[in-house]
Each structure stands twice: as C-alpha cells, then as structure tokens.
C-alpha cells in the first residue's frame, strides 16, 4: 500500500454515462472500493456498480412518520381529554375520529422533515469545501461531464499503478486531486 500525503485521489473524466458505468464496474472488479462517481444526473446502475446497494433513507423516513403519528395523536389526546376536557352533552372525551386529520398532517410533516434533513445528514451536506472543487474541469460534473474518482485512502491505491489502470479505461483525461 502506497501512502500519498497531500493527494485526495485520482479523477478520471469520461464522455458518456455508459463509459462511466463501464469504468466503474471495471474498477470495482479490480478491487477498488473507496471511490465515487460523479454525474450531472442520476445514472441507473451506477450506485450498484460502486457497491452501494441500499440506502437507509426509507427506514429513516418511516421512523419520522411514526414519530409524527404518535406524537400528533398524543398531543390532541392530552389537550382535549386530559388537560382541558370539555363535556359536551356527555360525548366521549377521546373523540378520536375528529383527531385523524391533524394526526395525518403531522405524520406527513415529520416524515418530510426527516426525509430532507436525513438526506442532507447522510450526504454530509452542506459541505462548503471539498478537494474535488480544486479541479477546474470538475465544475462540468454538474453539466455534461462524467467522473470517476479513486480515493487515495483505498487500500489498493498506488499512484502509478492506479493511474495506469484508469488510463486503460479510455478516459478523456486523468487528474491528480490534491488534498
């Protein structure tokens, strides 16, 4: 294993989504794991090619929704049946059917807030600084260019060998990304 202080990784630029997908698959087969692919839009199969098969987002959002449902109902039960009970002609204080709309709204609200803030947290955003932003051509990753970055922390990373490997994938350009 080669340690490369001051180097974040090697960035290879590709022409099209298809070539990026193929390159990513080859890199995974070659044993590289600490890498990431960048594209202006989601490419089907690319996360799988990187070995990222499942995201925890659905579970997080489910938990958020359950918290919203339980706390929404509990809020109304506490307000209308415990803290400030009003006896209207002997009708039951726990008038749950009339509490469904607010319970539903709070379920959706908490689930959605969990979804958005969970997404940002799992992606580590906001991230004002990232080594890749040093690479001038990387600004095209949000427009029309497709990148694969093998990071220097990968156990198999070796500057000349990895560079040769990437060159064999037919990229448009290879850049060393400083830390």
């Amino acid at each position, binding site marked *: 294993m080669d340690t490369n202080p001051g180097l974040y990784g090697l960035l290879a630029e590709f022409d*099209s*989504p298809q*070539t990026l997908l193929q390159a*990513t698959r080859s890199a995974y087969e070659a044993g590289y794991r600490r890498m*990431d*692919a*960048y*594209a*202006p*839009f*989601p*490419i*089907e199969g*690319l*996360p799988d090619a*990187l070995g*990222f098969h499942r*995201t925890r*987002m*659905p579970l997080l*959002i489910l938990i958020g929704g359950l918290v919203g449902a339980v706390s929404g109902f509990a*809020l*109304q039960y506490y*307000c*209308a049946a415990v*803290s*400030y009970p009003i006896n209207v002609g002997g009708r039951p204080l726990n*008038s749950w059917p*009339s*509490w469904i*709309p*607010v319970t*539903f*709204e*709070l379920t*959706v*609200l908490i*689930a*959605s*807030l969990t*979804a*958005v803030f*969970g*997404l*940002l947290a*799992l*992606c580590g*955003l*906001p*991230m*004002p600084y*990232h080594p*890749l*932003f040093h690479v001038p051509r*990387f*600004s095209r*990753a*949000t*427009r*029309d260019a497709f990148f694969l970055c093998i990071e220097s922390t990968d156990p198999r990373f070796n500057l000349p060998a990895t560079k040769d490997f990437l060159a064999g994938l037919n990229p448009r350009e290879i850049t060393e990304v400083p830390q």
Partner: protein
Amino acid sequence: MTQETEIPLTHPKEASEGIPPVMGPGYTFRSISEKISSITLARRTPRAWWLGFAVTFAFTLLLLYTILYLLFQGVGIWGINVPVAWGFAIINFVWWIGIGHAGTLISAILLLLHQKWRTSINRFAEAMTLFAVANAGLFPLFHMGRPWFFYWLLPYPNTMRVWPQFRSPLVWDVFAVSTYGTVSLLFWYVGLIPDLATLRDRARNRFVQIIYGIMAMGWRGSAYHWKRYEMTYLILAALATPLVLSVHTVVSFDFSVAILPGWHSTIFPPYFVAGAIYSGFAMVLVLAIPLRTFYGLQDFITMRHLQNMAKVTLATGLIVGYGYGIEAFMGFYSGNIYEKFTQLNRMFGPYAVYYWALIFCNVIAIQSLWFKSVRNNPVWLFLISLIVLVGMWLERYVIVITSLHRDFLPSSWGNYAPTVWDWTMYLGTIGFFLALMFLFVRLLPMISISEMQTLLAESKEAGEVTTEEKR
C-alpha cells in the same frame, strides 16, 4: 464526443400517431444545461421583464397599503358583516389554495405515475404552488382581525390554560395548510439543489457564485448522493400525494361540517379537490403559455404538455360540473325545504347572475376543450384557462355568499357586497403572486435541468432514437 449527438424525443409509435414529443429534437446534455441556465445567468434582464415586474410590484404595494390600512382600521373596511362574516377572505383563500394544488399534482402524482411530460413543467408549477399558498395564507390571517395573535391557533402551553379545539375543522385547516406549505417548500428545494450546483458552476460573477454556492450546499453529483436523493424525492412524492388530497378535503370540511344549507353535503370533499386541480391546471397553462413564448422554450414545454394539461383541465372540469349537478339534484330530491330554497335562491335569487356566469365558465366554456383544434391552439387555451380561473372564483363566491346570506330564519337574512378594500386586497395578492413568479423566472432555473437530462438519457437507452448517431 459520443454524447453530443442529436436525439429526437419521439417514440416511433407516438410519432406515427401524430403525438407531439415531450422535448424538441437535437438536444444534448450540454445544450439542455446551457439553454435553461442561461436564462437565469444572463447578464441583461429583458426590458419586458422589468415592465412586467414593475406593474406586478405596483399591485404588491397596493396589497401592502391595504394591509396597513386594515391593521389601522380593522376588518370593518371589508364588506363583511353578519350574516355574511366570511366574504372575500374565505373566497380568495379557497381560490388561491386550490390553484396551488396543480403544482403538487404535477410534481408528485405524475411522478408516481411515471408521466414523462411532467418533467419540464414541474419546477415552475411547484413555485406556483408555493406562491399561491403564501397568498392564500394571508386571507385567514388578516381576517382574524388581530393577526398578531395568530399563534393562539397553535397548541402551546400558555398562561390562559386553554388549548385549540381539535374537533374543529378550522384547527385542522391550520395544520393542513401549514404542513402543505412546508412540504411544498421542502420538495421544491430538494428538486432545486442539483440545478443550483449547475448554476454555481456556470456562473462567472463571484457574488452570484457565492449565492448559488451557499444554496447548493456543496452538491457535487456523487453517485452515493444521487441514490439517496432519488429515493428521498420518490418518498416525498408519495407523502405529498395524499397530503394534497387531504388539504382541499380539510378546506371543504370548513363548509360541509357546518349545518348550513348548501354547505352540509358529503359531495364537498371530492368536488373541492377536483375543482382545485381544475383551477390549478388552468393557472399552470396561463403561466406556461406566455413563458414558453417569451423565453423561446417551445422545445421544452411542447404542444404535448399543453394538450395534456388541457385534457386534465377538461376531465376535472367535468367532475366539477357533475358536482354542480348533484348539488342541485340533492337540493330538490332531499325534500328539505331549506336545501331546496338555497338551490332556488342560488339560481334565481339576488346572486343568480354569479351562478349562471359560473355555469357558463365551468360547464359550458370548457366543452370546447373536446376539440383537438382548440387544444392545439395556445391562444385559445390561454383564454379558456382565464375563463376557468374566473369560473372557479365565482364558484367560491356563490358557495360562500348564497348559503350565508339567507339561512334558516328570514329575520337573520342580509346581503353582501364587497368594498373597494376587498378588491384591492384581492388584486394585490394577484400582483404579489405574479411579482414572485417574475422573480422566480429571473433568479432560479424554471425547468429542472437534471431531470431534463435524465429524460434525454432515458430516451436514448429506451431506443427512442430515430436517427443514427452522427460523428
């Protein structure tokens, strides 16, 4: 460069049936990105933009002036009084919130239904939702009389030791509308993040880079991020779908839970939801038709989009017309003298002219959308959409005023007429809405760049390429 090829987005089968494509021919990933973002990043603001913004901003000032005078004098400056205590405030609230519904329908429900044609219209339809909800919220807020106590509607431990009445639809409304506003904002912002990053990377001006950079939060298009992003976006759509249906249902409960004749009806929830989508699509058409012409976006907002929106408008309009029919039928069939009187009073009473105008707008005028030649003509679609918007406003006017002004006891009857301040507040919100739309098209990408690029990539994979790749 292999991706720089011309790809017409017409499925061979669709093309043979004469269905227009969802995107004009000859676009590449790069040209899509540049065409959309250059509207925002253009150095010069078009003169027509300034003119439009100035006019709509003047109406926004009118709104501010009305609100200031209202706070100074109280709600007595409006035409409301007993028995019609709810006049324009509730009419305009329901009208605006209904308009907002189309944005969520396009962005969430059509996403779940895999409708490709939603892609180029969802961004500004969502912006329309946000601005419509913001305007809707103003009306109940200022109808309260002392809006600075609005927080009394929220459940919080207080020294008065009371809580909101959770058995009341008015409290449900507070939760429904505030949840709807929040979720619409989140959905819109999540959709914007990748495009904000595109703008950040394309901007030349340092200040502009920093502003878009902050808003993009360091998005860099990582495949890991995209996977979580797509999953989140899909689940948000699944959450927003029942939400949008619940919001107008709860709004209709404000009426139907009351025992007033003409309001106390089980048809209200579906009929209100259909009416909301109907007026919302009309508003999307009213905004889309001038926008695509002015900014030359006919390749992205094609005739396919206009035709499909016209079809949705027609379908929901027919549901609304069915609602009117059932309302009238139930009025006579119920055998209830009050219900029957309310129907007769609507049709032939002092507000009959509004009723028949609404029937003309919402039942008769929209029948022209059955004709393909009308659906293919943007000018006609624009005019019919305006008629629909007027019709839906009249519908709320008829529902609110005719039921309230003559209820069970003739001794409590009265009449209602809006004052000049009712009109300035209403026109002011229209101005405010359009001013916000003007700012939106200037400052943010009005079409989702990353989704248009996905659309292009998908059609390439699906083999919807009729010409061979060049170069």
